[in-house]
């Protein structure tokens, strides 16, 4: 009896001890994530007043009415969604063969080497990667030099400071996330599936199209959602590769807040961007894919 009580007591204290582990981070997230974002939501329902940051008790829907009645902002939202969708699609097409090769490389050293390349580029500061992109894509950049050297074009082709440039930059940004998501899924497909299709007389291409590709579908879906959420949120890529000529939502937020001190309207755009991004993330989580080990 006393022994059972002792076990019960120690079980309880251990249980409490476990909660002590997570309380600091929960407190940190509530204080510096939930409350600030919550206040931002509240700010978006305040009447617009230039220069005022503090939340007031007046409720107004004017900011949202303004957002949804001005074609300028609606088009920015549409452009953001379109951009992120195009980037998801292109990133998928570019990343799939890379992920396939990584997944099928069985030599451990070679496999690790390829993963290190992907991981190192993912961890490298985006500004540095864009510096390289700008040198390659600029009017006097490498590609234009080659084109003109070969006589393909007379003058420089505008490869950046436009929508196209932002797409190029975002694909470079998103590739590692897509690759890591796909590698996990492709690795999980039993080779016997494709072998079975082959032994039944399917050509290699047909076996790939009918077996391997459909079996990669969960990774394709969650990778695309992840890339969508990441690229719609990016400020740095549209800023540098679009040269502020491609007005997507993050650019508008910065302009409203930092340049015009319109906190309420800036908060409204921020809330709309946050909700679009969070929806994509929620669907991504719903799919239950954690193939990138929580690193993506």
């Amino acid at each position, binding site marked *: 009896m006393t022994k059972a009580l002792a076990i019960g007591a120690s079980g309880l204290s251990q249980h409490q001890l476990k909660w002590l582990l*997570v309380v600091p981070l*929960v407190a940190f*997230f509530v204080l510096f994530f939930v409350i600030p974002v919550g206040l931002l939501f509240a700010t978006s329902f305040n009447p617009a007043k230039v220069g005022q*940051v503090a939340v007031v008790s007046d409720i107004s829907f004017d900011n949202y009415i303004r957002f949804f009645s001005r074609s300028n902002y609606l088009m920015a939202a549409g452009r953001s969604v379109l951009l992120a969708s195009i980037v998801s699609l292109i990133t998928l097409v570019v990343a799939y063969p890379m992920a396939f090769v990584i997944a099928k490389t069985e030599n451990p050293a070679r496999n690790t080497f390829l993963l290190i390349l992907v991981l190192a580029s993912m961890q490298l*500061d985006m500004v540095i990667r864009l510096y*390289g992109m700008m040198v390659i894509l600029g009017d006097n950049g490498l590609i234009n030099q080659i084109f003109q050297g070969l006589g393909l074009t007379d003058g420089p082709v505008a490869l950046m400071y436009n929508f196209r440039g932002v797409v190029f930059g975002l694909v470079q940004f998103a590739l590692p996330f897509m690759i890591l998501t796909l590698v996990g899924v492709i690795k999980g497909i039993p080779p016997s599936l494709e072998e079975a299709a082959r032994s039944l007389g399917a050509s290699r291409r047909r076996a790939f199209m009918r077996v391997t590709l459909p079996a990669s579908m969960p990774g394709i879906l969650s990778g695309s959602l992840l890339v969508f959420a990441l690229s719609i949120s990016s400020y740095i890529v549209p800023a540098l590769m679009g040269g502020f000529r491609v007005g997507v939502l993050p650019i508008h937020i910065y302009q409203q807040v930092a340049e015009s001190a319109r*906190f309420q309207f800036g908060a409204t755009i921020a809330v709309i961007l946050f909700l679009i991004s969070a929806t994509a993330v929620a669907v991504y989580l719903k799919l239950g894919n954690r*193939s990138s*080990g929580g690193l993506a």
Partner: protein
Amino acid sequence: MERKIPLPMLVLAILGFCYLLFPILVVVLAGLTTGEFLTFPPKGLSLRWVISFLNSEKYLSAFFFSFKLALMTMVVSTILGTAAALFLARSRFIGRAALRAFFLSPVVLPGVVVGFALYAFFITSGLGISRTIWGLWIGHILYSTPYVIGTVGASLATFDVSLEEAARSLGASPMRAFRKITFPNIAQGIQAGSIFAFIVSFGQFEVSLFLSAPNSEPLPIAMYNSLRYKFEPDAAAAGIFAITLVIASVLLTNRLVNIRRLLERQDG
């Protein structure tokens, strides 16, 4: 026997790797160019811009500012993240998966929005830390801790809990069982997680945008501000140091934990 990887697939993959890596190579070459302006291919190789970077007040101070900020972030993220990962691995709490998703969510939510929210919060709450290193510190902890949780979580997933239970049943206190059994087994995971936290903070741009002040900026912000107007080869030279730091970190991570296993499927 036919090759495992069809040739068209291999060619496409090589092109993809060029897309991923060539811009990085370009930065290295640009930082080592002899020319006054950034041209490609470089006119010749020299250390002149590296030396110029080492003498430049702007980039060198930004580099060290980022380094300091990343170290500060690393310490807090490692402690908070490891503790939370332990909880998530051991608790049978019903909302565990939701809590994990909540902790990981900053990584995929817009950094500009979170940075703006923090900036407004710092002003209205009167904390007096908007546009200071302390405000940046808080923003960076939010974005770095998820990586610690992911990495430590992965090493806890491969650790056999029954070892710790055995120590407990032999009379070790919970603290002692943790110190003697669990900790040594996940120590390398914690180290790898802290390296991730460091490097994520070091390269963080989006959340820093609203939170940094002129004259005390992290390196990505300083580089961005100059890149908006003109290409400076000493910015590329600063980039070389950052690239070296990232490659060293990833290699070190790979020595500590099996990167291949780290990136594999992980549940709970």
